[in-house]
């Protein structure tokens, strides 16, 4: 019993770094993804092309490779980050690309008539985006955003290879030390609880933003 408590406490400590990566990545990649989407849709050709290439690289290569690149390859050319910054940089750049594609599709799904109505009423481009397009886009993109967010919870376990004591690494250390699988079950339970909480939050958001249709 005492051992179980100790295991839970260790894993809880490990989940701190997991949560930290998760929350910070989300907080940075969502706005970044939105701006990437706007640039991707911009009529300035070079900008749109650069964003296209960026999205292609980020979605077309493994996140694991990107992590290793930032963590091991960049220091070789003199670019050095702390462990956590390296992980955050890789996760943010990667997730921003996925979010950008979701936002782009969301923005493009808003009928042209909404822009035209806003224009004939005298709204500026910024007002139209902020007041008319964004709220409708959020409503439409919540389900895929929710999916990606839950993926992110699980992807945080990749930092395990960067020798940071995240939830998964702590669990593995205990399992190897004690020859006892319990820690894995507890770790699994932690992930399940996190995704359950997120699912509940997104359900409420969908209900809030969805109050206007049906």
């Amino acid at each position, binding site marked *: 019993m005492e051992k179980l408590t100790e295991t839970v406490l260790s894993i809880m400590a490990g989940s701190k770094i997991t949560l930290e990566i998760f929350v910070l990545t989300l907080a940075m990649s969502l706005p970044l993804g939105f701006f990437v989407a706007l640039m991707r849709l911009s009529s300035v050709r070079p900008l749109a092309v650069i964003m296209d290439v960026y999205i292609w690289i980020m979605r077309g290569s493994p996140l694991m490779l990107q992590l290793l690149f930032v963590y091991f390859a960049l220091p070789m050319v003199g670019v050095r980050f702390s462990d956590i910054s390296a992980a955050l940089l890789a996760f943010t750049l990667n997730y921003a690309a996925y979010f950008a594609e979701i936002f782009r599709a969301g923005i493009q799904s808003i009928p042209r*008539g909404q822009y035209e*109505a806003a224009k004939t*009423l*005298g709204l500026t481009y910024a007002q139209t985006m902020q*007041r008319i397009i964004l709220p409708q886009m959020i409503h439409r993109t919540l389900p895929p955003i929710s999916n990606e967010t839950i993926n992110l919870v699980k992807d945080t376990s990749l930092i395990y290879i960067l020798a940071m004591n995240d939830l998964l690494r702590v669990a593995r250390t205990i399992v190897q030390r004690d020859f006892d699988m319990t820690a894995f079950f507890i770790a699994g339970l932690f992930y399940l609880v996190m995704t359950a909480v997120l699912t509940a939050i997104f359900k409420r958001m969908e209900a809030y933003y969805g*109050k*206007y249709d049906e």
Partner: protein
Amino acid sequence: MENTTNKAEYMIRARGIFKSFQDNEVLKGISLDVCQGEVLSIIGPSGSGKSTLLRCLNHLETIDKGSIEVKGEFLVKNDTSGRAVYAPKHEMRKMLSCMGMVFQQFNLFPHMTVLENLLEAPLQVKRQTREEIQPVAEELLRKVGLYEKRDAYPSRLSGGQQQRVAIARALAMKPDIMLFDEPTSALDPELTVEVLKTMRGLAAERMTMVVVTHEMTFARDVSSHVIFMADGLIIEQGHPADIFGCPKEERTRLFLGNMLH
């Protein structure tokens, strides 16, 4: 109609408008005048360029050649090389603000209630306070008979109700000119009546209106002037009694014959 009367009387003067989409020339030199308090109806077969013409008037489309004057100021005019050049952005914004538009597909903001739809532009664009604008908006909703629906979302309204909200939303900005692009074409016949009634009400209040329509009865009874368009050209225009009573052009006769039977 080329008389040189006081130029402020003209709400819109358009001269020689040309407009192409890629190599498809849709407007081939259209000129028209709309005076204060006048109701101009534009009729014609599908694809003749009616919507494009209306959308050129309020800059939803840009013209290639020609000029458009709004209340005596040039929105766009030809430069010396004969290409259309638009006024600076802030001047254009001012001119466009005196035109309201009603679309075939309503285009209400679905994430806002009926009342919020009306308040949005006055609050954001004119920076009016809620206390100033809400009574005005509620009065407009009463006028279109939808005051009880003020807290409903557009998806809960019938097409006819949505279109009347769209009219009220445009009116909330106190425009001098209202543009209508087939406002009843997306509606079931029994719902068009209520929208047309609202529009008749506006005409009776001497609102300047430009209406693209397939409702021949409305065009005949309400308009002060009718333009018949085909293939990007004005084929015939005049008083509704003449256009509908004794059209001069064969194409007009054919079109009206098809529409009325």
